[in-house]
């Protein structure tokens, strides 16, 4: 199903979606553009390259309440936080980020245990993907082409949106997407010409834009098993690393979290919240033993997790080449260069 709307009517579309439920979309705030829950339709912007933070927080918020409790003298009263996400829409997700949702699904919904928090929000949310503009150059940090993602890849999107000179074209990818498209009366039916236009645009943006190298999931997974013990390589590659958590927090496929109880006077919440394998105390055991005390070991864990362990466990690389980690790194460590030099070893 192909639908369309004129660019100047975009605001109407935003309002129409907001009537159906919460909408997450890119908003310009300060220097960066980031996804936010929209309060005012005029806030939404489509003029951005990619957001500073990944949209994973829509399904996996940085901090999420699990149990609310109240400590009493005699007994503690506790109430699990109920799961009742509203049907919502996330609009303007770049192809690499849309792909990241699929990768995260394999973790949160796979391996025998379904994560109820992720599942609740994920199944009720419609993802509207948004093609990278084929006429502008990619950011030098990006390498999504390497991970087999094109500038207009529809994987992970329920609806895919392409922007032309005068209008926005929407194509339903999944049933969920088609349903929403049908529901949005403000959209017009696309013609045969426009369908061809959509396909042409899609084809055009499958050309290489970002940094690229040939990698095969299994081969790279084996490679890192082999490189694992090459201490010299890792120390050199990560010599500048300052062990902050910026790369993992902006990453669309990092899912590590911590659980902690936080009490204020009597009342408290058990929450889970993002954690980073780059922090010193990530693996510090109560006994005082830390299996990964050195920075290179932690960085190695991050890279090997994405490119080796994840392949062994879930059958795909857990990286989409969005380049966020490289862009946000305070000391410009570039994961692409590390993969590249490791694969040459």
């Amino acid at each position, binding site marked *: 199903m192909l639908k369309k709307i004129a660019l100047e009517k975009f605001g109407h579309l935003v309002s129409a979606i907001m009537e159906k439920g919460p909408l997450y979309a890119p908003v310009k705030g300060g*220097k*960066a553009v980031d996804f936010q829950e929209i309060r005012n339709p005029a806030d939404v912007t489509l003029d951005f390259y990619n957001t500073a933070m990944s949209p994973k927080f829509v399904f996996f918020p940085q*901090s999420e309440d699990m149990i609310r409790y109240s400590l009493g003298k005699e007994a503690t009263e506790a109430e699990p936080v109920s799961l009742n996400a509203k049907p919502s829409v996330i609009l303007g997700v770049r192809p690499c980020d849309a792909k990241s949702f699929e990768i995260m699904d394999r973790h949160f919904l796979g391996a025998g245990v379904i994560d109820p928090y992720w599942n609740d929000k994920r199944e009720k949310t419609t993802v509207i993907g948004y093609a990278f503009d084929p006429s502008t150059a990619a950011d030098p940090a990006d390498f999504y082409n390497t991970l087999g993602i094109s500038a207009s890849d529809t994987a992970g999107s329920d609806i895919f949106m392409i922007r032309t000179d005068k209008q926005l074209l929407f194509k339903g990818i999944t049933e969920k997407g088609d349903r929403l498209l049908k529901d949005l009366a403000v959209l017009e039916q696309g013609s045969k010409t426009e369908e061809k236009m959509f396909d042409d645009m899609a084809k055009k943006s499958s050309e290489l834009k970002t940094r690229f190298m040939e990698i095969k999931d299994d081969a790279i997974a084996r490679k890192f098993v082999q490189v694992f013990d090459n201490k010299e390589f890792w120390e050199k590659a990560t010599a*500048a690393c300052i062990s*902050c958590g910026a790369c993992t927090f902006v990453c669309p496929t990092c899912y590590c979290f*911590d659980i902690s109880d936080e009490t204020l006077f009597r009342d408290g919440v058990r929450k889970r*919240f993002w954690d980073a394998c780059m922090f010193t*105390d990530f693996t510090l055991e109560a006994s005082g033993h830390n299996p990964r005390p050195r920075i290179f070991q932690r960085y190695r864990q991050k890279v090997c997790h994405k490119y080796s362990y994840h392949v062994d466990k879930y059958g795909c690389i857990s990286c989409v080449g969005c380049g966020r980690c490289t862009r946000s790194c305070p000391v410009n460590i*570039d994961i*692409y260069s590390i993969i590249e030099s490791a694969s040459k070893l």
Partner: protein
Amino acid sequence: MTAMKKIEENLKKEAKRLLEGGEVSVVLAYGRGYDENHPVPFAARKAEDADSLVFNEYCTFNLARYLPKYPPKTKIAVAVKAADSRAVVQLIQEEKVRREDLVILGIPVTGMKDQKTGEVIDNKTTCNMANPVIHDILLGDEVHGFQGGSPYDVLAELEAMSEDARWDFWKKEFEKCIRCFACRKACPMCYCDPCFMDASRPRWADKSPTTDGHLMYHLTRFYHLAGRCIDCGECSRACPVDIPLYLFHKKLAKECEAMFNQAAGMKIEDKPAMVNYGNQDSDEMLK
């Protein structure tokens, strides 16, 4: 040859000489990153590494940050710009590194640029000095007559605000925090292990990212850096969500200079400001 290029040539030359002669076992400087505008901090350990050193207007990192992690008695050459040299001095004052272990390669330079925005940062996020306060070898010509205004000019707007407006400003900024700790990790003065934020008893701030916890973290960190912050601006450049931490640090540096008559990291002989107390202090500072 531009001044930057000349510094780069000298950096390579001196690094090679120091490493070849065995005078130092490591040279902390800058190497090429994934493109020109994104250099990386680079530790040269062999003479041949020296060829891959670079210097350009984007080499903003404060390399003093890496000094405390080396075991004592490691001979280190470190390339420092003006603010970075103050960090080295401050670390020496705090006995985190020893002067005799260091060969300080001073870089007199102005016009450094922010990697994200390309703006010149001289008097904006750094201390607006051109020449290192200490050096063994100077890699370029000393800058004379550099006038960029006071490093504290950028504070004017915030200082003029009402308390309520300032609170609104900081509240909005702290709410952006994602607790990645890039600010503390990039800071040359944040070397505590463990940091007060990692302690579980007492737990000073919520472990989960709450706004109240952000407030506690940032205010306490500002306090820990009062009188010690050398105004290099690394915290703000490291921040992935662009919190202007440098403003707060600058304000405290300014106040500490006024109250304690001493700027951080200027003279090796100084005692760190917070422990340099005495009867001469006036109660006026508490008003």
